[in-house]
């Protein structure tokens, strides 16, 4: 790998990272696990002049029970999320889905915060966060704010994070109902061609879709159909409504729409049976 030339700073603390962001602004990129950023730098599609390495801020790697929610530090590696007993007990869909990402090497490097901050609609965890109505905690030098998942993903590779923001924590609600994440991919290590997250919450079902548009999408047509008393199979027929899936070497838009329906039905059936 021969990226374009860049400078490098190792952040000593979250505060230090924020200072460096203030100092370098748009020119800087945060480096966490690197599994999204470095491939772009390899191809010189990303050419940040400054990399701020937050990968060693161990105090941002944690999973803790916080009453109604589970708090996950942004730098928690997928492998840790996958193995977390707290998550397996209270929000198992997150642990399960983390285990579906990439391969073992990727999961030992990639972080949950990095996955969300990258804003790739083909990623699995953003979809799960959307289905869960998770909260994303963001710090900047001017303070801390919380952004709901449905406001966090703003476009293709775009999020509510500004150039001087640091994503610090993800808060997911404790689940009591069933859940499912159906990831359809050709190779185990691939991104989802389509993914569907379904969770039973608040007396209803939340359904969200991976790689069916420029951002992770709530399948609101499916949710409404279920609320109107349709069964899973009937509701799943609405899965492709208001989506704009890409056509690429992994699958045509038509194929993705068809998959979305099948996978939504399977996700709902699994969630209801769990």
């Amino acid at each position, binding site marked *: *790998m021969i990226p374009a030339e860049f400078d490098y700073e190792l952040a000593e603390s979250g505060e230090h990272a924020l200072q460096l962001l203030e100092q370098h602004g748009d020119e800087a990129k945060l480096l966490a696990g690197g599994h999204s950023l470095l491939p772009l730098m390899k191809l010189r599609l990303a050419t940040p002049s400054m990399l701020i390495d937050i990968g060693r801020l161990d105090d941002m790697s944690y999973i803790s029970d916080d009453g109604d929610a589970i708090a996950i530090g942004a730098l928690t590696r997928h492998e840790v999320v996958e193995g977390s007993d707290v998550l397996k007990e209270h929000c198992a869909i997150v642990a399960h889905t983390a285990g579906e990402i990439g391969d073992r090497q990727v999961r030992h490097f990639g972080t949950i915060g990095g996955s969300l901050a990258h804003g790739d609609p083909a990623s699995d965890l953003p979809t799960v966060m959307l289905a869960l109505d998770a909260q994303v905690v963001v710090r900047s030098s001017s303070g801390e704010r919380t952004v709901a998942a449905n406001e966090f993903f703003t476009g293709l590779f775009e999020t509510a994070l500004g150039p001087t923001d640091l994503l610090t924590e993800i808060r997911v609600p404790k689940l009591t109902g069933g859940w499912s994440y159906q990831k359809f991919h050709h*190779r185990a290590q*691939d991104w989802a061609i389509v993914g569907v997250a379904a969770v039973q919450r608040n007396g209803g079902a939340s359904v969200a879709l991976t790689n069916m548009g420029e951002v992770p999408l709530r399948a609101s047509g499916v949710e409404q159909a279920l609320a109107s008393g349709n069964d899973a199979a009937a509701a799943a027929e609405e899965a492709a409504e208001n989506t704009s899936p890409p056509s690429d070497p992994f699958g045509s838009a038509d194929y993705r729409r068809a998959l979305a329906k099948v996978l939504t039905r399977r996700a709902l059936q699994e969630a209801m049976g769990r």
Partner: protein
Amino acid sequence: MAQVAEQAQKYVGGGILRKEDPELLNGAARFIDDMSIPGMLWVSFVRSPFAHATINSVDTSRAASMPGVKGVYSGTDLADEWADGLPCAWPVTEDIKAPKHWPIAKDKARFAGDAVAVVVAETRAQAVDAAETVDVDYEPLDVVVDMEAALQDGATKVHDEFENNSSYVWNLDVGEVDQVFNDAAVVVKERYYHPRLIPNAIEPRGVICQPNPAQGEYTLYSATQIPHILKVTLALTLGLPEQKLRVVAPEVGGGFGSKLNVYAEEATCLALGRKLGVPLKWIETRSEGYLATTHGRDVIQDMEVAADENGKIVGFRANLLADMGAYLQLVTPGIPILGAFLYHGVYDCQAYSFTCTGVFTNKTPTDAYRGAGRPEATYAVERIMDALARRVRKDPVELRRLNFLEPFDEAREVITGLSFDSGNYGAALDKALDMFGYDELRAEQQRRRDAGDDKLLGIGVSTYIEMCGLAPSQVLASLRYVAGGWEAATIRCHPTGKVTVITGTSPHGQGHVTAWSQIVADELGVDFEDIEVLHGDTAISPLGMDSYGSRSLSVGGVALHYAAEKVITKARTIAAHELEVSEEDLEYSSGTFSVKGAPDKSKTIPEVAFSAWTAHNLPEGTEPGLEETHVFDPPNFTFPSGTHLCAIEVDTETGMTNILKYVAVDDCGTAINPIIIEGQVHGGIAQGIAEAMYEEAVYDENGVLMTSSMSNYRVPSAAELPTFETDRVETPSTTNPLGVKGIGEAGTIASPPAVVNATIDALLPLGIDHIDMPVSPERVWAAIRNASGSSVDARGTDATAAGSGVGSADTPGGEA
């Protein structure tokens, strides 16, 4: 031969762990990128982003002023470096159109990735950064990416000097082909597209050029399969005196044919070394390799079989379009010809026709890729066998049995004029069916069909044959290949009892060091660990034709056997002299000569080696030393064969396929090392499954490679692959005294039709009888969606058998 055939075999046939593996696995082995030479500069290539463009000008001034840059050169700047273009060693017809192929393009770029300039700098990063600033003024031209479009009248020409994009037409007709097809009760015709593939050796290519200006000598280190061929061809391309050039292939991390070539980067690094007088290094990046390393396959096949109403075959007819890409690399035109004689498989017939048209397109040149020509032939034959079975309402296994050549253990001539060395196709089939549980799986398939299960089951059969042991030099001459097919081996017995073996083969992962040690250990009675095998350096091993086409054991290993015989012959003379008996009074066994009737009077090979070294008491006329070389030119090819069976489950809702069972029974002749064979079979099947289900190099209409990295060129991993159940039958080859046939490519050749036949077999109830490779979930889904819904019954209905062809609705991932 008899004197060693009787040897006790301590090592040959044993599953011995590879002695070269510890250093390969622990990181101690030295590959090109592990090597560094003081004062070494780095090379980076500027590549055309356009598939077809006129190069108006190349402005190197900005790049030349970048930090660390020592030189920037366009194709025009280097024009005087070449005595000739890059070589094509296999002009398959007299009237072939073979364009001049300059290492750095001068006037036109003809594929995306064609090198147009080169930068030399102090560090790799400086070289890459500077390459980005070379300002090339391109004038984009119309692009031709599709072979059939390329052959249309008025199509854009890849090479202006030729009248069209057809490079050659090669034909072989035997028997009354038209009449046989006209008279046949049944003719089945299908069209198959064999996808373009990217070889993906684990180690990218790399070159180091080390000039020695004082002596006018050059050492070229390259990650290559063919150091010997490189030495000859680069000497010609650069006009270098061959005796001043040494080529070294250090440890090489795989090739699969992609390092069986003479590349622009090798020629350019050598030219720059000559020009600048300093050592230079170039290491390919994976992304660069996707563009600039040869691709494989990319063949459209119109395949026909003619038979009587019972399915007894009378003729095969194949008509191919083979994509050459933009240039003819070392053996590009010859790849389809390696399959040209095998379009009747293991079946008898009376008429045979093969025609191949080589086509230029604005894509990366194609060349050898594991199997080279034989996967195409096997795929066409084994797919059409299943189609014929459907037509005549026979089980695919039954149809194959009906048409098998009878077992033979002496070479027999077949319709093409080739002599198959030995074969027992039914034996492998029987064993495979038994391991597979064929009848039970057929019953399960029927149960699922009857129940209307969403998950259908399919069974695929492939009773393949291939052709290895390249090759009898006179046959190569008749096929217009410009080199020979011999191989060399030297055995040097040291006075201390140790042995050095020098081979002309050039292993890059195959385990020659182990297998060669096994052969010599048994024949000379020396310890396996006391044998050193040297290879891959033209200064150490001056004679060789290198490794490709599963030739190493059946040509190079046999050369070694004959060299051992020569050692034993000389040693016998010396031993008889020392023991004061006649040679006829000596018995030889496991490295020891003993006097008949007086077994305590004996001499071992190491003892004789010491005597030969001291030369104190040699018989008259015997030269000191115990070292022999043999160069073996094989009298015939070898013909490995076997049966592969695959059971696949298809999710009819999503198109996802899942291999439930895979059985391979291969006949590679006599086994030297079953563990190495097992490894080759596993890797080969994996690569064939990759071809059948996952991989395809896809270009857009502008000739831009869309599958430009491993994220979207789908090389499968172990996670996608089933457990392979393997076994062997042994029908010793009659081509060589070891009885070996070759196993390096068998898995890749056999497996694609097994996988695709299984998938189609699953989908027959839905009226689907064709899907092109790679049979991806989307293609399966699209086929189901587009299917008429009328069943193509597994035992035959009148459904048409015509394939849907390239670029049709069921190939959404294919060429637009």
